[in-house]
């Protein structure tokens, strides 16, 4: 039982991170029908920038939490700028090109960013210094760390904030209008290019926070970390129904739970033949199942469009 609860906790933490990253995929897809495969790299850049800044601050004598927050505060604008630049340089010139062109470009951008990161930060793993207070809480015989509590809480706040932004504000309406029909949105006076830029910027800020969370929770960052994380978050977005914000959140949390429970029990279920390092299998198994049986995702259904 304690293992089950523990895996649920781990799954929620992992799922919160997936959800934040998946939102970036789903927002961009919703608004321009593009799968931005470079999004995982933005997460990686967020982790790397935060770590770099924190390492620079290590001797400063500041409290650990303050250092972490400064690191995060540095990562967010860098990622926003990266997201903005990716759209401007790589995707905007291809706005009217056949769909395949921006997709291939996205993979290209992903490779370029990985290699730039490798040149800047090297090939080695970077450790997240133990600056955050280690507080553990006991929940039904399982343990949840203070960092994990913070991750779940911050992710929840950001998801609520994004939902309110999209559903309740003028900017959110413009984003939804652009997603539904860009030319009609222009007729209403919406500068759709600006809305698309903003979508990338908002998605990238979520990615920055997610990157920081990953490195803080697993104490590690690496120039290659964005690739697999990006693919999994993309899977989460597809699971929920790509283009749908609530779907991305649900898909992220579910995928985190599936992975965590799968990794926790795969050893027992296969009599020790497969171990928890097969964790990654679950995400892609889920992706295949969704694509075969419910390509529109769990909540990705269309409102009937009559007349």
């Amino acid at each position, binding site marked *: 039982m304690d293992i089950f609860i523990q895996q649920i906790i781990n799954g929620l933490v992992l799922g919160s991170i997936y959800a934040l990253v998946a939102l970036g995929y789903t927002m961009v897809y919703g608004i321009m029908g593009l799968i931005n495969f470079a999004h995982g790299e933005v997460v990686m850049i967020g982790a790397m920038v935060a770590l770099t800044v924190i390492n620079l601050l290590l001797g400063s004598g500041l409290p650990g939490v303050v250092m972490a927050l400064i690191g995060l505060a540095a990562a967010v604008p860098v990622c926003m700028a990266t997201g903005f630049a990716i759209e401007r340089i790589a995707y905007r010139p291809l706005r009217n090109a056949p769909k395949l062109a921006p997709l291939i470009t996205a993979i290209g951008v992903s490779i370029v960013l990985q290699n730039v990161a490798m040149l800047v930060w090297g090939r080695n793993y970077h450790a997240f210094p133990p600056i955050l207070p280690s507080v553990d809480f006991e929940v039904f015989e399982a343990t949840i760390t203070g960092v994990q509590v913070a991750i779940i809480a911050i992710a929840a706040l950001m998801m609520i904030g994004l939902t309110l932004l999209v559903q309740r504000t003028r900017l959110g309406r413009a984003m939804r209008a652009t997603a539904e029909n860009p030319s009609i949105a222009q007729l209403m006076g919406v*500068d759709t290019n600006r809305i698309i830029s903003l979508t990338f910027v908002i998605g990238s800020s979520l990615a920055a926070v997610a990157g920081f969370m990953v490195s803080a929770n697993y104490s590690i960052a690496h120039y290659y970390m964005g690739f697999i994380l990006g693919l999994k978050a993309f899977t989460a977005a597809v699971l929920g129904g790509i283009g749908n914000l609530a779907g991305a959140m649900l898909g992220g949390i579910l995928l985190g739970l599936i992975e965590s429970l799968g990794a926790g029990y795969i050893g027992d279920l296969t009599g020790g033949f497969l171990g928890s390092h097969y964790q990654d299998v679950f995400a892609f198994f889920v992706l295949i199942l969704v694509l075969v049986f419910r390509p529109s995702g769990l909540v990705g259904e269309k409102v009937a469009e009559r*007349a």
Partner: protein
Amino acid sequence: MLEVTGLRVAYGGIQAVRGINFHVAEGEMVALIGANGAGKTSTLKALARLLNAAGGSVRFRGEEISKLAPHALVSAGIALVPEGRGVFPRMSIVENLQMGAYCRSDKDAIAADIEHIFGLFPRLKERARQMAGTMSGGEQQMLALGRALMSRPKMLLLDEPSMGLAPIMVQKIFEVIRTVASEGMTVLLVEQNAKLALETSQRGYVMESGEITLTGDAADLLSDPKVRAAYLGE
């Protein structure tokens, strides 16, 4: 108010609009009629900057607007009700109307204008929170017209407002168009239903294969034997 000279629109090598001239005076309602494929919608799309014109000039209240960004047109004072209505199907009626007022920041006046639109089309009020995509074609046309009015335009461009609607709906829509026009709105009305369009407008232009072939007072055009033969089925 609107002065179009030598407007040309081309798709690839095919010329859809071949250098047309027309104008709409302030407070006037003008019909642009013609058969399917005559170039009417292309003309409107070029005016609304949804298409790049291949040449010619479009002046609105003395200013050249043919090079404006598409989203700048609303602020200039032009609202287009597009062919096929183009409501946002997954947004509510109220949200669609709010989108019409996107360029305005006067919150109280926007709320008052929404009530005004509800007054014109009580049907919309009944369904205020419903998704626009679930409404009938006629209701969507009401919404599209109401949404265009929400920007408080100086000129309305209407693209085939009667298309695909039941006669009773057409009547209702045109009733509102007449009301709006009688309150001083400048209107350019593009219609395949030539009789209806000419009965509603003061002047008309007849378009054929990308050219304007006939123009005059709506009443004269209605009694013109050529128009009667070609567009009124007589």
